[in-house]
């Protein structure tokens, strides 16, 4: 087991949290690797904050549902997950993936799970961005009377 670089771990934990629960389940089908649950999947809320005028003092915008889970694999790797929504299987799978990515199966997990999830997220974003771009206004100035 190696201690992962926090920035890499931040990246994959974020990707696992944003992934659609159904996709995670399809890419990590049961049976899941054996694990001891340290904190059973728990649904709660996180208060989402904004900033006054986008850059000023923080204020409370409202909460969002979040499910968290912690567990340990047989090899001793500990995985954590905090994922949006109320899907306990999503949190459990994300925690298992977090643990796997710190152990001997890291390369395999990256290739089979993270890479497809990252590619799908990129496609989703590109699709939305392309639809938005198609609605971008191209201004043209009409010839005005005084210009003639």
């Amino acid at each position, binding site marked *: 087991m190696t201690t992962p670089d926090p920035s890499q771990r931040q990246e994959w934990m974020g990707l696992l949290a*944003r992934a659609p629960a159904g996709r995670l389940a399809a890419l990590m089908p049961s049976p899941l690797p054996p694990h001891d649950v340290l904190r059973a999947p728990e649904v709660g809320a996180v*208060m989402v*904050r904004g900033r006054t005028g986008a850059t000023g*003092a*923080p204020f409370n915008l*409202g*909460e969002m549902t979040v499910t968290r889970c912690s567990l340990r694999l047989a090899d001793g790797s500990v995985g954590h997950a*905090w994922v949006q929504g109320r899907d306990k299987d999503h949190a459990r799978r994300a925690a298992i993936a977090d643990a796997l990515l710190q152990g001997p199966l890291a390369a395999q997990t990256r290739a089979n799970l993270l890479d497809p999830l990252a590619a799908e997220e990129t496609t989703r974003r590109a699709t939305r961005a392309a639809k938005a771009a198609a*609605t971008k206004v191209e201004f043209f100035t009409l010839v005005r009377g005084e210009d003639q």
Partner: protein
Amino acid sequence: MYVAVKGGERAIDNAHGWLAEERRGDPGVAELSVAQIREQLRLAVNRVMAEGSLYDPGLAALAIKQARGDLIEAVFLIRAYRTTLPRLGGSAPIDTAAMAPIRRISATFKDAPGGQVLGPTFDYTHRLLDFKLAAEGGDFPPAAALPSAPAPVPHITEFLNRDGMIEVEPASDATPPDLTREPMDLPTTRPLRLQALTRGDEGFVLSMAYSTQRGYGRTHAFVGELRIGTVAVECDIPELGFAICIGEVEVTECETVNQFKGSKTEPPQFTRGYGLTFGQNERKAIAMSLVDRALRWQELGEDFIGAPAQDEEFVLMHSDNVQATGFLEHIKLPHYVDFQSEMELIRRLRGKALTQKEAAE
């Protein structure tokens, strides 16, 4: 005197049974699924999330179904559910400048860097009923797409900021007050007002904003920028010791630019109003930014002209539709004893008045 009244259980059970039947409507018509509401009534879902103060489209859709489309009732259901959730933490403030907007317009700068992006808007539609939608299985072409390289879309107020033309928002990382945890204390601070406004009733906030436009506390607002899109939510994870992205929320943000003639300490410059709501909710976000600006009169050294939108007690104590509904509708519940005492009082007074009248005649 309080007298407990028992009875009515059977009537209540039967009323709720009938309610369930009425909710379902004609069984010959297919039942609505929660997923259909979530996907096809998304603006209703957004409103319930914003005013329910809980971002969870599936729950908001369920609440709308349960409430038979009564959105304030749905907000009430979400608020009640919210109180059962443990609070796991507070997020870092979302970075709306990092948003990839699906809609972004400015009424102040035509050639804003990043462009004017209309997005999926009702603007420029003719508001004619579309009877094609009444026919089922309507086909429509897929939305046009124009593949493009992602580019940063900076806030428009940033450009005004560079020239000192607009007030600077003092940066801070103070933990904001939370009106869901501490009762609201007047006078409030701007972060508390923004929390109250973003969960406030859309109709109320809209009317308050409209009143400022009509002259009751004029704000001279331009929409400097309106943007809609998803932003990452990051939260410190105690077991890790660092922050991670825990998901994404769609938000609408509105920054208004307002006239300001200057005061004893400040030179003339533009001032800001700010609106931010969950979901695609631009009427609410624009209204919120106007009301935010109107409520800032004291801080900016402006005159209080007695306009309702300037009065924070008036605005903040009446903006919450769950509170308002609770107090309004409680008067329909049994008040038999209260009313009986009023009847007796009126009878006594009438008796006295009649006796005096007879004596005078």
